[in-house]
C-alpha cells in the first residue's frame, strides 16, 4: 500500500506579486520518504518550501497538505544558520525549549523531550552553554535538536551542511540517515550539494529554470535534465 501523501502539488505556480518563480510543479511528498531538493541559488527551492509551509499562497494550481500537518505542530524546521539572531542571550537548552512553540508535545513531557533531543544530537553536556559560544557544527546540531524536540513527522532542513567541515558534515548526515531509518521520519533537505542527494535521499526534486523535476533518486539523477543542470555549473559538484 502506498504511504500517505503529506504534501501534494498539482500544476502549482508560486512566486511573489505577479512574478512566478516556479511553474507547473507536480510533486508529492509521502510519509517516510527522504527528499533532497537541489538547485542553484534563486531556483525556487526556498519558494517551494515557503509554499509547503503555508507562508506563500499559490498563484495558480493546487497545494494539498495532510490535515494533521496543517497546524504545523508535527513539523520540525532547521533554518540556515545565518537566520539565528544573537541579539538575545540564549543557552542551548533555551534554544531547544523554544522549539516547543505550538508543538503537539504534552506539557508534562516537555522537559523529557528537551533532554532526549539534546542527547540525540550529542549536546546533553552543553545544555547550559551559550549558543554563540558553540562551534558552527555544534550550533547546527543545536538547531537540529530544536526541530527534533517537537517529535516531528516531517523534518525540513534548509542548507543544513552549509559552512560545515567534512567531519561535521558527515556526522550530521549520519544522524539524519539514522533518524530516517529508525524513526521513519519524513525528511526534506534543501541543498546545493549533489552528493547528499546521491548518497542519502530516496527521492530528489531538481530545480531548473523555474521548473521542478521530481521523482525517485535514480530516475531524476540519471535523466538528461540533471546532467544539463550540472554541466552548466549551476550546482555544486561533489
Amino acid at each position, binding site marked *: 500500500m502506498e504511504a500517505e501523501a503529506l504534501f501534494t502539488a498539482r500544476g502549482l505556480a508560486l512566486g511573489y506579486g505577479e512574478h512566478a518563480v516556479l511553474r507547473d510543479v507536480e510533486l508529492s511528498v509521502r510519509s517516510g520518504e527522504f527528499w533532497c531538493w537541489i538547485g542553484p541559488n534563486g531556483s525556487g527551492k526556498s519558494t517551494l518550501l515557503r509554499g509547503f509551509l503555508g507562508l506563500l499562497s499559490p498563484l495558480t494550481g493546487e497545494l494539498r497538505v495532510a490535515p494533521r500537518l496543517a497546524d504545523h505542530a508535527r513539523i520540525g524546521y532547521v*533554518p540556515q544558520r545565518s537566520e539565528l539572531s544573537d541579539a*538575545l*542571550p540564549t543557552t542551548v537548552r*533555551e534554544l531547544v525549549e523554544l522549539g516547543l512553540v505550538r508543538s503537539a508535545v504534552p506539557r508534562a513531557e516537555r522537559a523529557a523531550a528537551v533532554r532526549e533531543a539534546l542527547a540525540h544530537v550529542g549536546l546533553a553536556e552543553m545544555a547550559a552553554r551559550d549558543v554563540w559560544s558553540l562551534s558552527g557544527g555544534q550550533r547546527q546540531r543545536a538547531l537540529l535538536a530544536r526541530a527534533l524536540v517537537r517529535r516531528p513527522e516531517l523534518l525540513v532542513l534548509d542548507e543544513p551542511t552549509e559552512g560545515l567541515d567534512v567531519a561535521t558534515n558527515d556526522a550530521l548526515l549520519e544522524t539524519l540517515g539514522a533518524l530516517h531509518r529508525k524513526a521513519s521520519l519524513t525528511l526534506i533537505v534543501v541543498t546545493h550539494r549533489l552528493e547528499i542527494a546521491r548518497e542519502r535521499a530516496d527521492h530528489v526534486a531538481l530545480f531548473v529554470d523555474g521548473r521542478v523535476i521530481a521523482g525517485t533518486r535514480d530516475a531524476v539523477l540519471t535523466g538528461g535534465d540533471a546532467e544539463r543542470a550540472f554541466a552548466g555549473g549551476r550546482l555544486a559538484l561533489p
Partner: protein
Amino acid sequence: MSDFLISWSLFWPSYGAGLVSAALLALIGIWVVARREIFLGAAVSQASTLGIALALSLGAWSEAAWAESEGVTAGLAVAAAVATALVSARGGGHGRESGEGLVAWIFLFAASAPTLLLARSPHGLEEIHRLSFSTLLGAQPVDLALLAAALLASAAAAWRLRDPLLLTALDPETASALGVPRRRLVVGVAVWLGICVGFAMRVSGMLYTFGCLVLPALVARRLARESRPLLWLAPAVALSAALPGFALAHTLDVPPAQMTVTLLCAALVVAWVVSRKRVER
C-alpha cells in the same frame, strides 16, 4: 533622604508615574532590543512629540478649547507613535525605502516639525521643550492609573506569549515555519509599543522615555544568560535606577529624568564589564 520621603506626599503621582513608566518601557524595550530596532524607540518617542505639537497647533489655529484638551493631546500623541511603529513594522521591500531609512526620516521630521509648527506659540514651544527636557513633574493620578493598567496588561501578555515572541525575535523564519502568526504578532506589538510610548511620552518626555525603553533591556541582556529572565530583569533594572535616581535628584536638586538616565548609562557600562569578564572566564 528623609526630605525625599516627605516630598512623596506632594509628588506621588509624578514619582509613581515615573516608576511605573520605567518598568513598562523596560518590558516593551526587550522587544525593541531583541529585534535590533533601538533607533525605532527614539523615532516613536519623537513622533509622539509631533502628535502633541499637532494638537497644540490645532488649538492655536482654531482657538477651540477642545483641541488642546488632554484627550485630544493624548490621542494624537498615541496615534503618531502607533503610526510610526506600524510603518517600521512594515519594513522595506523592493523599490521601497528600508525600515532603517524610514525610521531616520520619521525621527528627523518629528524632531524638526514641532518647533516650526509652534514657532509663534510661546505656550506650545514651552510644552515641546518640556517634553524634550523630560521634567517628569506634572503627572496626574489618572496618568499613573493608565500606566499601571498598561504595565499589568503588558506583563500578562508577555508572560502568556513569551515563547512565540522570543522565537520570533530570535529566528523569525522558524517561528513562521512552526505556525507562529508572525505578522499578527509583529503588528500587534508595534501597536502596543506605540500606545505605551505615546502615553509615557506625555508624562515623562523624550529623554526618559527613550532611555527607559532601551537602556534597561541592554543592561539586562548583558547580565542574563537566557532570554526569558529578561522579562523581569529589565523592569527590575529600570526600577533600580529610577528609584535612587529620583532620590538623588531630589537631594542634589537636579532633574530626576536626567539623573535616572545617567544611572542607567552607568549600569550599562558595569554590565559590559561583567559580561566581558564572564566571556573571558
